[in-house]
Structure formats: C-alpha cells, structure tokens
C-alpha cells in the first residue's frame, strides 16, 4: 500500500498528481472464498479489515450491489457519540468512539475526525429526567454527560435565539456529551476499503446477491449473484435496511423493520456552530460541516419504508422545529435533501449474531450505526473468525429475542 503522508503529497504534487496508485484493486471474481461479506458499507468493509488484520482471515470477498460506500455510509449525518442508556450498550459505544479516536492513524487515511461535543437542548422535564438517568449510567462506563444551564447553553450556541420563556417549549437546560465527534463519512468507507485491500481482501462492486444458498445439511454454502454463484462456508449479511430481503431467501425471519431516515444541508455559511446540536423534544439535530453547510436531520418517517427520498411533511416538520430554536436560519437556502433505508430491531438495539443456519451471520439493526462502524466491524470479525461472540457484542445476539431479554434503546437512538 502506498503510504499517505505530507511527503507523498509533496512528491505527487511535483508530477501533477498523475501517479497516485489506485486505492484498491479490482480483481476477477473467484468462485470460492473462505468468507463472503455482503455489502460494502462501513460495517462490511470494517469487518473485512479486522478479519484480515486481527484474525489473519484474508481469503475474503466483499460483494456490493452498487458502488463501494454508496449506501447509508454515504448518506448519514456523521454524528459519533456514546450517550446510550443500557449497561450492554454503553461499553460497546465507548469502544467504538475510542477506535474512531485512533482510526486516521490506523488506516493511514485522513478521516477529518473532529471531536466537537454534542449539546442536547432540553425543553421538557420528562426528557431532562431521561437524560439525567442516562448520565448516571454513563458515569459507570467512563462516557461523559454534563448538565449546563440555559445561560451557558446560549453562550456555547449563540445562534440559538429561540426557545425563550414565552415560547411554546422554552429551553430549560442543556446536556453536554464531550466525547461526541464528526468525521468525513466517505473517508471511513474508503479508508477501510484501502486497508482491507492491502491485506488481500477483494471488493467486488456491481455484484448483487440475489439469494443465499444452503447445502444438503442446511448449512450456508454460498450466494447467487448477478455474476454467477460464489461459494463460501461463511457468509455475513451486512446490508443495512435490506437484511430481511436477503435472509428471507433462506426462510429466516428476523425482528427487523425497515424505515426511511432523511437529512438535508443548507448553503455554506461562515463558522456559526462548532458543536453538534441535538433537540430531542422537537425532533431535529444539526452540525456544521467543514465546508460550512449546516447538516440537518429530523425524525424518521414513521411507517415502514424502503424509499431513499424525503417525504415533504417529514421535511417540513424538521425545518419548522429548527426554526423555533434558530429563527435566523429562516434566511438560509437549503441545497440538497436525501434519505436512506435502515432497519431497526424490535428493541431498537443492533443485532450482531450467528443464526439458526450454520455459517450464516447477520449484522443489522444499525439505526445510528455510522458511529458503530469500527466496533461493529471489530466484533463481527471476531464472531466470524471464532464462532464465538466478542464480550462487547455477546448481549446483542438473536437469542435475546427468544428469551424476551430486550436491550431497549428506543428514544436514545433517534432525534425524537
């Protein structure tokens, strides 16, 4: 792998940047691998990288129906945080934040990682109580959540001029999550892809898996794609949003529903907000990108959906909520809007698991799963390599549903 550094940048500048190596190869598709990973999103690519790096499993193919990193990893609002509720969740997210902290160096790829803290703007007492309860839980695991008063909140977010005492929902407090960060989403996909390729992993784009294949004993034996049959004794479904579409081809029903989550950006403006602002009571959150655009997200479309556009009333709700707190943003032009389809499990926590079908693994239910990419890949690789879950992910297996042993995280995962 060509090492990226200040020196390599300078050297390539001399040749007009004509001589950079391709970041990954495009080898021919073989008919057999040790492991097939379906989906070249953040989770699939991270899994491939850690399989090779931590477990020496390198005869791996990542099969992607579109282009690498073109799914939700390219469509999210890049908030990285660990302010969850449950004893099972918090250590997992603390791990993912710590992996992100060192990832630029580990992958030798500039993720433009920016630790900037997240401030929850609290406008109702039930929410305040819920967040304070989370604060006490998080204290146990070394994640941070600190209360601030309204004056301090307004000092840190000067453009937040709405929500005064006379408004419908006055701001009553703030909560600061100092561990929160943002980074460049494409770089996460490309960085993992390049590093995985360096270890010998193959990535195949425009390769859609249409069906999972089982042998006479019922174990998984490969996949059927638009480019023919590819065999492997271990197959991981890491397709975010389309999990059930694939697992149903082998009769496996999962506790997942697919929903549409959306975002939009404003025209670029001068530095205005240097934290991630989350407004859980009215259902909107935003941050400012390095380019100066405000990146804004709202609540999901409430009914199941496989669409990747934004519904007008969902969009209007988010804009109206934002304008209540940031009335000056009325003058901003909005430039682009989009959506993605994500699946959510019955208890709103992820699923990283073996299945009833020997050799078949699933990683799904990644609602807010951009932050989870490093730890999700790290733990899924461990599970595939050892057939035993890593302790951090052991509570997130499918068997939790059989015991009705839910890890309830609804309310901490979405903007409302």
């Amino acid at each position: 792998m060509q090492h990226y550094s200040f020196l390599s940048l300078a050297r390539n500048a001399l040749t007009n940047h004509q001589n950079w190596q391709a970041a990954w190869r495009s080898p021919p598709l073989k008919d057999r691998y040790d492991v097939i990973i379906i989906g070249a999103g953040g989770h699939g690519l991270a899994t491939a990288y850690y399989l090779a790096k931590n477990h020496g499993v390198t005869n791996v193919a990542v099969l992607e129906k579109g282009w690498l990193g073109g799914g939700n990893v390219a469509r999210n609002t890049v908030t990285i945080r660990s302010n969850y509720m449950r004893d099972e969740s918090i250590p997992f997210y603390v791990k993912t934040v710590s992996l992100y902290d060192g990832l630029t160096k580990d992958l030798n790829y500039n993720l433009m990682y920016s630790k900037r803290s997240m401030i929850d703007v609290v406008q109702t007492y039930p929410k305040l109580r819920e967040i304070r309860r989370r604060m006490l839980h998080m204290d146990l695991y070394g994640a941070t959540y600190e209360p601030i008063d309204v004056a301090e909140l307004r000092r840190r977010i000067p453009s937040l001029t709405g929500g005064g005492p006379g408004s419908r929902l006055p701001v009553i407090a703030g909560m600061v999550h100092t561990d929160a960060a943002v980074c460049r989403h494409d770089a996460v996909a490309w960085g993992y892809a390049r590093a995985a390729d360096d270890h010998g992993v193959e990535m195949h784009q425009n390769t859609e898996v249409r069906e999972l294949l089982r042998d006479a004993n019922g174990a998984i034996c490969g996949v059927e794609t638009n480019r023919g049959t590819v065999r492997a004794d271990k197959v991981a479904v890491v397709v975010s949003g389309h999990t059930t579409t694939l697992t149903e081809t082998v009769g496996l029903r999962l506790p997942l529903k697919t929903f549409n989550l959306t975002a939009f950006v404003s025209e670029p403006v001068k530095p205005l907000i240097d934290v991630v602002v989350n407004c859980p009571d009215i259902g909107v959150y935003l941050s400012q990108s390095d380019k100066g655009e405000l990146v804004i997200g709202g609540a999901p479309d409430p009914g199941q959906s496989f669409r990747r556009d934004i519904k007008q009333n969902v969009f209007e709700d988010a804009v109206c909520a934002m304008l209540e707190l940031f009335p000056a943003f009325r003058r901003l032009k909005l430039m682009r809007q989009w959506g993605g389809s994500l699946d959510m499990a019955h208890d709103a926590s992820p699923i990283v698991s073996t299945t009833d079908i020997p050799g078949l693994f699933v990683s799904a239910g990644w609602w807010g799963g951009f932050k989870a990419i490093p730890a999700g890949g790290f733990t899924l690789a461990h599970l595939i390599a050892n057939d035993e879950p890593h302790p951090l992910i052991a509570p997130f297996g499918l068997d939790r549903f059989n015991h009705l042993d839910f890890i309830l995280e609804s309310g901490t995962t979405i903007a409302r």
Partner: protein
Amino acid sequence: MLLLTCPFCGPRDESEFAHGGYARKQRPDNPQMMSDDAWVDYLTVPDNPMGPVREKWWHVRGCGTYFTVERDTRTHDITDEGESHAS
C-alpha cells in the same frame, strides 16, 4: 406526503394523522398453548416486505378515528384503505 382516507372524514392530508404503528396479526387466543418460537415470532417479528404492509393511522387532528390501511413500502401507494377499528 400521503393522502389518507379516513373512514369518517374522507381523504385528508397526512399531516392531520399520527402513525398508529404496525398492524399486528390477530393475537393468539392461547399463548400458553403455543410453542415458544411461535410466541416470540408473534411478539417480535413483523412482516418487512418490499411491498404492501398493514399499518394503523390515527386521525388525531381530525375526528380521532383509528383505522388500518395497506401501503406499499416502495411507492407509498395505498393499496387497501380505510378499515375502521370497531373497538
């Protein structure tokens, strides 16, 4: 935006409604008599098709009726509309 047909008020804009959740299958009469697998399936596993799903809507900014429709998850087309809830 959906145009939902309330059985009482007729076709109205989606913004007048709140989503009432996935319309579950009939609750089994005797969960004690079922296998654990079937009971867990009923409790936790929804249908998640790229196609029609049954869901409830609540005309909360209207007459207050709850009703069930069938909507396609790819197109938002309402494929079967306005069945009011008796209870």
